[in-house]
């Protein structure tokens, strides 16, 4: 067991930080980027493609770089550290992950190739209004001919996307995946809106929309969706860890510099002890996030589901703790949009509910509680 990066990974981290961290070094850049549609910096997205970040997880045959989950995690964490609004998680990890998992070789080459090169943005249209998080589609249905009908919601960057991956209930039962792009996409009703953290999502309504089955037509791919959701949970956890690291650093800096009653705030022990508890939360989260990332690499799908639930639970708890305390310890400016920490907390809240919050994960873990005596993180032979 080894928690350290190798030299290439360190270089990747530094390069990503050099590009993205620099682009959003000051808070105003990020505010500008989300002010108008598409809600991110297209030029930066192209630069990320040029650097190879968008093709990182995909095989070289599919136009990607063939890197592993640790590398993807490094990028997600760096994006989190500056709250970069680029659609990496939704487009590369989530939608791209599904294409990689389910698509035919031709589809992978075409769609992932376009994604990796920065030509096209992908989005996964899956959640349905009024439904809880799940791996299945219910209210959006696919006819035997592959025509889609129904409404999806919370589709990350769904208004901007060039290619939609869509889940739909199959006539024969189960959930299938479909691609919608080009002319068919032009006929789809897409209403983009802003999320609480300034990110973008869309409500997408299909009305007999022509769609191409992703992979084998008629196959139930619920378990593949579940697997990619678990992968996405773990990458979202990496992003959230980046957010928390920035928040703790900002809080420590603020306590050292802000004066009240004639002294800096770090004179007040009640506040510094709370910062210590934030640090504890952050460190525990860091360990679990790194571990879960390594579990992805190890490749066992049961272990993946378990690790995804565990890391999501921890991130949910720690994210609320650190997010709320960061605002409280900053006082008034913590709730303003002009200062960054509040929006960081907002982003943690969105990530928390992206694929099931802590309570959701706890119930998933509850199902397995009696299947083992104690957890042994070293037992992965």
């Amino acid at each position: 067991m080894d928690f350290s990066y190798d030299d290439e990974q360190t270089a990747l981290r530094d390069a990503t930080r050099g590009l993205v961290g620099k682009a959003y070094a000051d808070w105003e850049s990020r505010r500008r980027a989300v002010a108008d549609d598409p809600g991110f910096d297209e030029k930066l997205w192209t630069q990320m493609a040029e650097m190879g970040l968008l093709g990182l997880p995909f095989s070289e045959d599919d136009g990607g770089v063939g890197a592993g989950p640790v590398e993807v995690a490094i990028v997600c964490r760096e994006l989190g550290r500056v709250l970069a609004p680029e659609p990496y998680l939704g487009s590369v990890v989530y939608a791209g992950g599904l294409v990689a998992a389910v698509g035919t070789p031709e589809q992978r080459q075409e769609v992932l190739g376009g994604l990796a090169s920065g030509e096209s943005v992908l989005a996964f249209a899956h959640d349905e209004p009024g439904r809880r998080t799940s791996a299945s589609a219910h209210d959006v249905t696919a006819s035997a001919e592959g025509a889609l009908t129904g409404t999806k919601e919370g589709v990350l960057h769904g208004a901007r996307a060039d290619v939609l991956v869509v889940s739909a209930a199959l006539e024969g039962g189960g959930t299938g995946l479909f691609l919608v792009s080009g002319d068919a996409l032009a006929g789809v009703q897409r209403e983009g809106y802003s999320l609480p953290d300034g990110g973008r999502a869309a409500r997408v309504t299909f009305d007999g929309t022509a769609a191409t089955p992703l992979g084998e037509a008629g196959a139930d791919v619920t378990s593949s969706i579940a697997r990619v959701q678990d992968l996405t949970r773990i990458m979202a956890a990496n992003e959230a860890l980046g957010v928390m690291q920035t928040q703790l650093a900002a809080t420590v800096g603020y306590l050292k510099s802000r004066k009240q009653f004639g002294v800096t705030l770090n004179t007040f022990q009640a506040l510094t002890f709370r910062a210590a508890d934030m640090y504890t939360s952050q460190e525990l989260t860091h360990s679990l996030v790194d571990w879960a990332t390594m579990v992805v690499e190890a490749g066992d799908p049961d272990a993946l589901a378990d690790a995804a639930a565990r890391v999501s639970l921890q991130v949910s708890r720690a994210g609320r703790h650190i997010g709320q305390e960061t605002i409280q310890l900053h006082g008034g400016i913590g709730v303003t949009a002009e200062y960054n920490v509040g929006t960081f907390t907002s982003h943690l809240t969105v990530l928390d509910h992206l694929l099931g919050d802590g309570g959701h994960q706890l119930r998933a873990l509850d199902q397995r509680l009696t299947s083992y005596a104690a957890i042994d993180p070293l037992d992965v032979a």
Partner: protein
Amino acid sequence: MQLALSEEDQKFREEVRTYFTTEVPQDIRTAVEEGRELSKDQIVESMRALNRGGLAVPHWPEEWGGRGWSELRRHIWHEEMQAACVPVPLAFNASMIGPVIAQFGSQEQKERFLPATANCDIFWSQGFSEPDAGSDLASLRTTAVLDGDDYVVNGQKTWTTLGQYGDWIFTLVRTNPDVKKQAGISMLLIDMRSEGLEVRPIELIDGGHEVNEVWFDNVRVPAENMVGEPGSGWTQAKFLLGNERVGVAPVGATKRVLARAKEIGAEVLADDPLLRARVAELENELLALELTALRVAAHSAGGEPHPASSVLKLRGTELQQAVSELVVDLAGPAVLGSGDGGDDLDWYRRSTPIYLNLRKASIYGGSNEVQRQIISRGILGL
């Protein structure tokens, strides 16, 4: 000890309930129920409706519209108002500057300001906090220098809630830089249409603009607009902040939100014992808080708030925040939703901005750290 209300209090309760549910416009009450922001007109209209029935400023001296009620009746009035989704009377008017003018103002000031304040003919704003004087109010730097019959005011206030609607602003200003911090502070009432006064909105994390900065650039204020003597502002501020804490536990409103969450989230709750347990626990904590408000109210004497009123602010805001967090969890994936498709989904969509906005509840009006300080020093003697 007696659990039940007396027959008279029972009757009183029914009367105010009837008034609230018939005399305050339905559209305003619906907006409150759905957790929407109110317009200035709605705030004013609602307060005037209350004032017509003598229900806007019952705690003021009777001479100026007060009713001489028992603390229990004030509690009933306050809870029934919230249960009926009636906006509580504008705090800046009813709880803050009104009582201060009634206590410390000159007869002229009382006559000029109190009726207009009770009826919301003047919409007041609060000008206390400054960028470098948050919890440490006494270090404020806005100055007022006497020049003939006027004070000339320069400086900046911040966190002025609803300042964009304000007609007048009550401010703490430094009139004497040469004495100990608190001793040089005075309270000045300033017409917000004065030349040199500018209100600049601050965007909050929920995207709203309910708070503002207020800038003073050589604003001339007639000296007659000072409340009390020069240098007495700290006394008035302490009086005001003490009053502020009393009414501040938003028990009724929080109960209402929780009841609505139970209703809208019924299906999710039926399936989730952990969320149900959180609801049950929060209900119990709210009950304990409400009973504490009743118990503490009964022991407040002579206008001096019971020291335990800090508990109300501290716990009241914690529970308000916890309930808002619960609603976000009931919303779940709807946090990322568009809000289209019905009132429930719309309510869920707004849950996150509300949750984020309410983080301020434990910061504004004396942060919870200040409240803990008051409890540990003032009550426990630590």
